[in-house]
């Protein structure tokens, strides 16, 4: 049975970031990646590094998001120096466009709550005139928007590739096509059975997205995650017209425009559907009428890894120290926090102080 310092189950954005971080600290780490049969939320991501909507009623999540956003530039540089991969990260600020006055008022109230517990979080409410000054071609009936200088974006596929490449460049070992069939606590460490072999390590991190719940239940951890579908459309490449991400419209460095998104409770069905595609396109055209001339070249659905309150879950087993779990739907935004703060604490056998309020114990008295 092959032995490592740490095993990470999951090769998506969360698992790869943690594995990258552990290997970076010198732990001989094995990343077990299920393969193309997995739901792979990391492959369906919109690519926002987004602060202005996170942890509004849960300050620890807002702080954790902030920490990650602040460290993202460092992560981008590190990946580029190590692997040559450009994650496409930039931080020009971001805008959430509100189509009507009701949306704008609700968003303003939410940002006020966020600012109240996180005074370092700065934002501006843009009325129609101010918004039209920043976004040429804005639709005639758009009420306004909210701007946060802390927001940014990146290419989630290059991020994933960079994390995998950097992990392996530092000597990390990745096994693909390796769905985990069994986990056992064994002699102060953990034994993991996969279709391609048996592995053991004194540290085990479960970061398998929607697969985490079933894996964790084998070792008496309750990680209540479930699927929430989001759909995205992508247009042909267009000349740059958007210099900063707008929550549901993002133009990539190559010129494609991503249009999102949806929140659908449809179980494990990750299909794209014409009604949602239509709704997303209609809203995008309402915000930017000239997009009606853009051709959509692809649409897809993907399943978010959603917790009962949509905030992340980080856990270390009380009965079996060294066994960790991490689950969230913000694998891009939180990538830097996972690479640096989370991996460092796990290497020391603990969770970061910053995430101790984010264990699943917070759901103990709430139904899920």
């Amino acid at each position, binding site marked *: 049975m092959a032995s490592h310092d740490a095993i990470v189950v999951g090769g998506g954005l969360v698992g790869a970031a943690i594995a990258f971080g552990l290997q970076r600290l010198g732990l001989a780490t094995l990343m077990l990646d299920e393969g193309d049969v997995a739901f792979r939320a990391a492959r369906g991501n919109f690519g926002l590094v987004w602060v202005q909507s996170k942890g509004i009623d849960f300050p620890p999540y807002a702080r954790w998001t902030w920490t990650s956003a602040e460290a993202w530039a460092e992560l981008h540089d590190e990946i580029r120096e190590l692997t040559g991969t450009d994650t496409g990260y930039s931080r020009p600020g971001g805008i959430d466009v509100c189509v009507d006055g009701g949306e704008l008022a609700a968003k303003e109230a939410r940002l006020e709550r966020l600012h109240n517990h996180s005074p370092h979080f700065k934002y501006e409410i843009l009325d129609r005139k101010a918004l039209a000054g920043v976004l040429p071609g804005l639709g005639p009936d758009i009420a306004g928007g909210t701007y946060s200088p802390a927001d940014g974006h990146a290419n989630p596929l290059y991020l994933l590739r960079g994390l995998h490449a950097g992990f392996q460049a530092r000597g990390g070992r990745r096994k693909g096509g390796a769905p985990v069939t069994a986990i056992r606590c064994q002699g102060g460490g953990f034994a993991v059975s996969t279709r391609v072999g048996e592995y053991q390590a004194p540290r085990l991190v479960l970061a398998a997205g929607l697969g985490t719940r079933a894996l964790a239940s084998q070792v008496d951890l309750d990680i209540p995650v479930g699927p929430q579908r989001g759909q995205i459309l992508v247009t042909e490449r267009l000349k740059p*017209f958007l210099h900063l991400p707008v929550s549901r419209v993002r133009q990539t460095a190559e010129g494609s425009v991503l249009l999102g998104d949806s929140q659908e409770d449809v179980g494990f069905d990750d299909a794209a559907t014409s009604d949602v595609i239509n709704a997303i396109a209609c809203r995008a055209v309402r915000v930017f009428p000239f997009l009606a001339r853009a051709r959509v070249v692809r649409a897809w659905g993907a399943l978010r890894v959603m917790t009962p309150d949509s905030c992340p879950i980080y856990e270390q087993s009380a009965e079996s120290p060294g066994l960790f779990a991490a689950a969230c739907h913000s694998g891009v935004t939180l990538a830097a926090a996972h690479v640096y703060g989370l991996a460092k604490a796990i290497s020391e056998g603990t969770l970061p102080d910053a995430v101790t309020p984010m264990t699943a114990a917070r759901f103990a008295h709430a139904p899920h």
Partner: protein
Amino acid sequence: MRRIDPATPTAVAIEFQGRPVQARDGETVAAALLAAGETVFRETPVTGSPRGPHCMMGVCFDCLVEIDGEPNQQACMTLVRDGMRVARQIGAGDIAPPSEPAGDGL
């Protein structure tokens, strides 16, 4: 590329890069341009590399051209029309309104 049946009349007059091209009624822009010896239909947005039709069935998007001022048209999916003006698609299509300088420096 050559026409299998060179005898069929080419009665439709289109324009490519300002030059006249004779096309057949019912054929696509891509077929007409290839028959006229044209191979470079566009330059890619990222590296500026030349590209021409590859799949001829609407899938690869390598035959994009500008038709009558409308960018990013698939030449292989568009039938010729008398008087049509076709130009190479250079880089990404531009559909956004002219941008004005942002007033408040965001």
